[in-house]
């Protein structure tokens, strides 16, 4: 089984978000980059399939050379090889088109990607990729097993869960639940050393359309004041909930 895991190179979740150049650009000063957390759940599940079922795991990202440390981390976690498509990821449709070109040239059985990236929160690439390839697509996946040439999945729906079965190949957009946070793989020293010699192939971008453009950024309004109420002062809490918040 050949598994492709699509990785986004995103700011660490604790990053202070600021904008620069008259709010036209994200300010990258002091930002540490990590594997997109939703992609990390997918990668860990793929490594589980590698360990239990002999899957061959390739990781891929779309970006310039500065994303390579993120790919090397994925290799240190256990991916067999990596692909970097050498272009700036400017738009979800363009990114999905770049990935589709790679998938069409390889016989992947399973493509995994996080349900969204935590920078632009688009949640588009896995579904666009599925549409371009005309493959089955499961979004917000909480559980994945592969047996007898079929994928058995659980996806989150509004107010519940749905169990599904689909044939391979398939595209799955994963999230927490695919594996638990406590099961996420942390690279060990042996993995880090091995990652240095694993293949990281750089591929030219294809000529693909861009459908959207980004304008000016703004930060949200500052948070309102917080009222701290003594744990013993229940009367005051009730008064505030009734008179000010008007929720009771």
């Amino acid at each position, binding site marked *: 089984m050949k598994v492709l895991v699509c990785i986004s190179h995103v*700011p660490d*979740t604790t990053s202070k*978000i600021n*904008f620069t150049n008259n709010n036209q650009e*994200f300010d990258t000063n002091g930002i540490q980059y990590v594997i997109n957390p939703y992609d990390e759940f997918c990668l860990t599940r793929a490594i589980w399939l590698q360990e239990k079922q002999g899957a061959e795991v390739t990781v891929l990202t779309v970006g310039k050379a500065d994303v390579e440390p993120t790919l090397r981390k994925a290799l240190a976690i256990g991916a067999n090889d990596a692909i970097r498509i050498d272009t700036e990821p400017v738009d*979800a*449709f363009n990114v999905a088109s770049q990935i589709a070109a790679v998938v069409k040239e390889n016989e992947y059985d399973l493509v995994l990607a996080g*349900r969204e990236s*935590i*920078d*632009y*929160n*688009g*949640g*588009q*690439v*896995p*579904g*666009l990729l*599925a*549409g*371009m390839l*005309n*493959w*089955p*697509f*499961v*979004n*917000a996946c909480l559980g994945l097993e592969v047996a007898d040439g079929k994928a058995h999945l659980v*996806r*989150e*729906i*509004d*107010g*519940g*869960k*749905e*169990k*599904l*079965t*689909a044939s391979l190949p398939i595209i799955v957009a994963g999230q*927490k639940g695919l594996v638990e946070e406590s099961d996420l793989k942390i690279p060990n020293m042996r993995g880090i050393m091995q990652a240095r010699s694993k293949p990281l192939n750089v591929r030219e971008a294809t000529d693909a359309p861009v*459908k*959207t*453009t*980004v*304008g*000016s*950024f*703004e*930060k*949200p309004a500052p948070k309102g004041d917080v009222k701290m109420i003594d744990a013993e002062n229940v009367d005051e809490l009730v008064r505030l909930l009734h008179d000010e918040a008007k*929720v*009771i």
Partner: protein
Amino acid sequence: MSVLVYLENWEGKFKKNTFEAAQYAAKTADLMGTEAVGITFGDLEDDATVIGKYGVKKVIHLKGDDFKIFDNYKFAEAVKEVASQEDADTIIISGTFNGKALAPLLAVKTDAGLITNITALPSSHFTLTVRRGVFSSKGFVEYSTEASNRILLFVPNSMGVEEGEGTAELVNGNASVGDVPTIEVTDIDRVRGKVLLPEAELVVSGGRGMKGPDNWGMLEELAEELGAATACCQASE
């Protein structure tokens, strides 16, 4: 040109974000100087004509075995066909789990510019421009698309809903789904009797101050008393 809105129903019932989607579509259509048309699927328990109270004058209802339960490919094919029948160049979808599974497939099928995570009405429709959240709500940005077809996916419960007057015309629709990738649904497990976050008027929220999951029960109890949903930041999950 018109605006088409996907009116999601859950086991035949409409929810708050169905009405929110209808209202968003009607206001977008107003901006564009046109009208909004709704599309809904499967067996209905609720009266679809109530969608008229939110500004949508016509609802197209697709029934049959293909549309009994949500299937992202079948629904995308049908929405594409109805959009063509209704001469719709703009499609509005609420960002529910199903909406998010449907929108990108539909974007490929209709060669549309897709903008997701939207938190406001479009500010311009010539080059369609709309505000959306980024960096997990630590920022917002104006996104634009010059594509001739566009799909807008808004964040549920971000717009608010105001009930007005009016009745929508309910029309039986026709659409074929063709040969699409299939996924078999083997079981559906829904939580019942709780207010869901995308539907909530009130939210009881907790964070790291709760110290741990053992203390979460008191928030659940408070939410139940208030008829509210519960929510937390990622750090307190």
